[in-house]
């Protein structure tokens, strides 16, 4: 991407148009942790930073909070400049007014739950402090537990105290560092639900760091995919999962249907040749030169399995026959792998009862349609070219 190193001039190819109404972050540095990340988060919006461990998610969160100072870049929130590498300007964490929920909550062990929440309210007179803290305690549904010390609270209760403490300060941005990773699955679901409800009451940007894609998809309005400190793409979950910018983004999102085809012409129409199949594509083919090899991606939801007894909708769209290679039952969902004649593998998930109804068995030949609207072309990328991804 060619970011200049320390020193400035970085905004040259920035995709962000400053100033930003909500939170805008652009950070560039060459070391010790290489970073080249940009993202924005509007007021009331929840942005999830996702990526494998070591991708710089937490460092970026700490940069917003002022706990980490990168070599260069810019952090702005609600029109205020919090960090500007060019002007050597950096506000202290105290003056940024952020609400931060740390991964292990970082509650003060020598203070009760109520005292923990009161601590950020020191600018108010004592009676008002207490009243506000009590209100926050009630908002996170911990009435009556204010006198408890953190070690007498459960993991979920601690997380709520941490959330209340972060919000009590009336922050300009809420930062959540893997806030659900230290609790059990049941508690996690409940806390996620509560966060989704609480969100409706606060009109500030919320940044969530998580490695859990499901969590990001469920909670976030926008997802920013990070890899080795580089922000690869920011988009809504729907766009991200159907239109990843690069094969690497698709793979980081655990999407597998990446193939290579070539541009051909058939009866005056541009088509995508994939092995022996000639595929119709809704968008993007017209601009590509004939004979060009192009990488393409198909969201699993755009693979339609034909029923044996009667034709299904869209049957005429890019039909092809394939052999069932693998069926992995994961409870109510079955992951299906189909081998197409020339060797490529299509993967998608369907309900386990649908597998039974269609009598799918290993080795069976089935017919599927690849929806033309779903086929997403990634010209200029190779399937494996940027495969320096360390995950399996």
């Amino acid at each position, binding site marked *: 991407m060619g970011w200049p190193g320390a020193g400035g001039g970085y905004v040259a190819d920035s995709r962000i148009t400053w100033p930003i109404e909500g939170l805008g972050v652009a950070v560039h540095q060459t070391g010790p942790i290489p970073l080249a990340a940009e993202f924005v988060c509007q007021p009331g919006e929840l942005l999830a930073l996702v990526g494998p461990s070591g991708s710089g998610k937490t460092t970026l969160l700490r940069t917003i*909070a002022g706990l980490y100072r990168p070599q260069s870049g810019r952090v702005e929130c609600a029109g205020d400049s919090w960090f500007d590498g060019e002007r050597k300007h950096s506000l202290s*964490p*105290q003056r940024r007014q952020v609400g931060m929920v740390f991964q292990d909550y970082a509650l003060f062990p020598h203070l009760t739950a109520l005292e923990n929440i009161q601590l950020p309210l020191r600018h108010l007179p004592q009676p008002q402090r207490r009243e506000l803290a009590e209100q926050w305690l009630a908002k996170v549904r911990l009435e009556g537990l204010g006198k408890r010390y953190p070690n007498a609270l459960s993991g979920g209760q601690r997380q709520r105290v941490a959330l209340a403490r972060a919000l009590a300060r009336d922050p300009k941005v809420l930062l959540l560092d893997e806030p659900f990773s230290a609790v059990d699955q049941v508690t996690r679901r409940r806390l996620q639900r509560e966060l989704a409800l609480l969100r409706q009451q606060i009109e500030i940007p919320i940044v969530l760091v998580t490695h859990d894609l499901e969590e990001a998809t469920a909670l976030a309005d926008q997802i920013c995919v990070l890899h080795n400190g580089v922000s690869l793409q920011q988009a809504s979950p729907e766009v991200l999962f159907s239109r990843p910018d690069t094969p690497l983004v698709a793979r980081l999102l655990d999407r597998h249907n990446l193939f290579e085809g070539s541009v051909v012409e058939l009866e005056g129409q541009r088509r995508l040749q994939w092995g022996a199949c000639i595929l119709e594509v809704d968008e993007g083919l017209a601009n590509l030169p004939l004979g060009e090899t192009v990488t393409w991606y198909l969201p699993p939801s755009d693979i339609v399995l034909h029923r044996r007894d009667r034709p299904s909708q869209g049957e005429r769209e890019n039909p092809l026959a394939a052999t069932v290679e693998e069926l992995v039952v994961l409870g109510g969902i079955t992951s299906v792998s189909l081998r197409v004649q020339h060797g490529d593998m299509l993967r998608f998930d369907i309900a386990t009862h649908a597998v039974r109804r269609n009598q799918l068995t290993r080795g069976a030949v089935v017919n599927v349609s690849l929806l033309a609207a779903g086929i997403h072309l990634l010209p200029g990328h190779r399937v494996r070219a940027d495969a320096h991804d360390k995950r399996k």
Partner: protein
Amino acid sequence: MDWSALSVSLRLAAFTCLILIPIAIWLGRALAYARFRGKGLCEAFVALPLVLPPTVLGFYLLISFGRDSPVGSFWANLTGGGLNFTFTGILLASLIANLPFAVQPIQRAFEHVPHNLREAAWCSGLSAWQTLLRIELPLVWPGILSAAALTFAHTLGEFGVILMVGGAINGETRTLAIAIYDRVQAFDEQGAAQMSALLLLVSFITLGLVYGLAGRRRWVRG
């Protein structure tokens, strides 16, 4: 019973604690948090009095407190008096001899404060000072207490260094520990026994008080 020796001992222990503990809080915190080259060297220097024979430490202090040495002459210029064989001299010696007893427990305590608690305090709007007073000090309090207890008890029992630097001047530098030695030398076993018992009692009560108090924190885990 040598009451003046008891008074010298208690005064010495109290002053050592009062002066040394704030220094140890600053130094222990710096050693716990800071990353710098030569930190190991610094820690070794602080720990040196632990392993050095008291007579060796006393010898060097005696030399450097002399009027010909920079420290001694500086002090003489400042106050007109000497350091050797004075209460100020043994207090200074006691401060140096007790450095590891005061610094190490406090340094360990600061090392055990999770780093993100300070960050959480900053994010809650607390300044560095407020963070120290409201978060760090309450959390390292047990370390400070045990540092104070160790320093107090160790000062009461210090013998070699005090003898080298201070001699045994009645009411000025003769501490209880030295008085006991003098009594034994004079075949006054009863006097030595009384004072030994007193020293034992005072030391035990000091330690018991401190460990008892430290164990009463409600929020302690487990």
